[in-house]
């Protein structure tokens, strides 16, 4: 019978807390950058300008149809060979996570916008609004409500995806678990604690997403 012992883990609590902080930083950072890039990609796709649309779509498919782990390894180990200079692991991690988030967010935004009835665009245009005024005043307020649940879900996934940066030695929560395991030889406790930490952070976020979705359905 296995004897649980959390004492060594508790001794290493600073490592876990630091790792959790790093995970939050990478999540927030890549969500923020991914949001801006994702909006740009979304509007490029809706621009009606052929080459811009194709480029944006190509970017999306590239990042949506390859595994994030492969993207991370490629950008950290392979891309520098093409660029001719090395990238620190934190930069490669942030860049990859942000591009990955952008590809998925762009699709969330685009889906929200194109789901709005064509008559709404026309009604805005018919009172003399410019395309941008229609977007800002009529379409986005409705689309943002509609895309909210998908956006939160994607962000929750993003939080979990940051665990992959541990493979290029970014000291996030998952990386810290392997460090603690190496020091204490207690994999069961180390990885259980790390799983619980992820859960404790994500469970409220998930419930929040469900609540938003529930409110939205009732609102409509």
């Amino acid at each position, binding site marked *: 019978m296995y004897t649980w012992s959390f004492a060594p883990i508790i001794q290493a609590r600073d490592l876990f807390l630091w790792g959790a902080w790093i995970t939050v930083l990478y999540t927030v950072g890549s969500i923020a950058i991914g949001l801006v890039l994702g909006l740009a990609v979304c509007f490029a796709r809706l621009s009606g300008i052929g080459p811009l649309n194709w480029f944006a779509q190509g970017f999306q498919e590239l990042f949506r149809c390859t595994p994030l782990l492969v993207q991370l390894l490629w950008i950290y180990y392979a891309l520098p060979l093409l660029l001719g200079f090395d990238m620190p692991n934190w930069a490669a991690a942030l860049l990859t996570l942000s591009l990955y988030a952008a590809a998925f967010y762009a699709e969330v935004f685009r889906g929200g916008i194109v789901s709005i*009835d064509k*008559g*709404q665009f*026309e*009604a*805005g*245009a*018919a*009172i*003399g*609004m*410019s*395309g941008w*005024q229609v977007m800002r*005043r*009529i379409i986005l*307020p*409705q689309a943002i*409500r509609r895309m909210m649940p998908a956006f939160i879900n994607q962000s929750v996934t993003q939080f979990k995806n940051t665990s992959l940066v541990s493979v290029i030695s970014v000291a996030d929560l998952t990386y810290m678990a392997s460090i603690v395991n190496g020091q204490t030889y207690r994999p069961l406790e180390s990885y259980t604690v790390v799983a619980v930490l992820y859960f404790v952070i994500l469970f409220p976020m998930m419930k929040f997403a469900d609540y938003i979705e529930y409110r939205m359905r009732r609102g409509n």
Partner: protein
Amino acid sequence: MTSVSPAAAYPASASAQNAADIVLEARGITKCFGALTVLHGIDLALTAGEVVSIIGPSGSGKSTFIRCMNMLEKPDAGEILFRNRRVGEKHRGNGDLLGQGELRRHVGMVFQHFNLFPHMSVLENVIEGPVIVQRKSRAEAVEIAMDYIAKVGLAEKRDARPDQLSGGQKQRVAIARALAMQPDALLLDEVTSALDPELVGEVLGVVRDLANQGMTMVIVTHEISFAADVSDRVVFMENGRIVAQGSPETILRRPDNERLKAFLSRFHG
């Protein structure tokens, strides 16, 4: 019925009309969807205060044509003129060309499916154009908007959301929204076609009041007797062409065109 309105002559061509009175004019409007040509060079000039009804079978191009008149559909050939200025492809004007935004500020449109903004109250729907497009102060916009909301009989619904309104009420708000821009002309695209029969009357009543007050209008409609009542001129379209036009009396009561007769016979008996 002898009309005394200035449009009594019902000239078939714009050149016979007094050019100074022409508010909105379509010249040679042609529209294709893919290989299908839905409008074959339509001409129509609208003088100030004139009410023109467009009737015709489904698929005759009536709605496409009225949507061309404020450039919601881009004609493949021909041009739209507002007060004798050609309308260009861009939102803003450019040299001699009037911008589409400017055209639409002066020519309102009401749609079959209302297209109210669901995230705004009745009042917010109606002040949106005056505040955002005409840059009026909110106070001034509210004053104008409440005037029109009251005119369509919905003053007590000013804070309601569109989903709390009946179809007829929604369409009356949509009319108030178009009127709040204080347009020179109004385009009505089958504004009663999506309504339950018992709600048609309240919307037609509002349109009739507008006609009586001298609003310049183009009305695409299936309500033949209503068209006969309010119009100075009735235009019969079929297969993307104007087949006949004239006073309601000549078009609807003494039609001399076989296809027009065939179309109208469906509304009798």
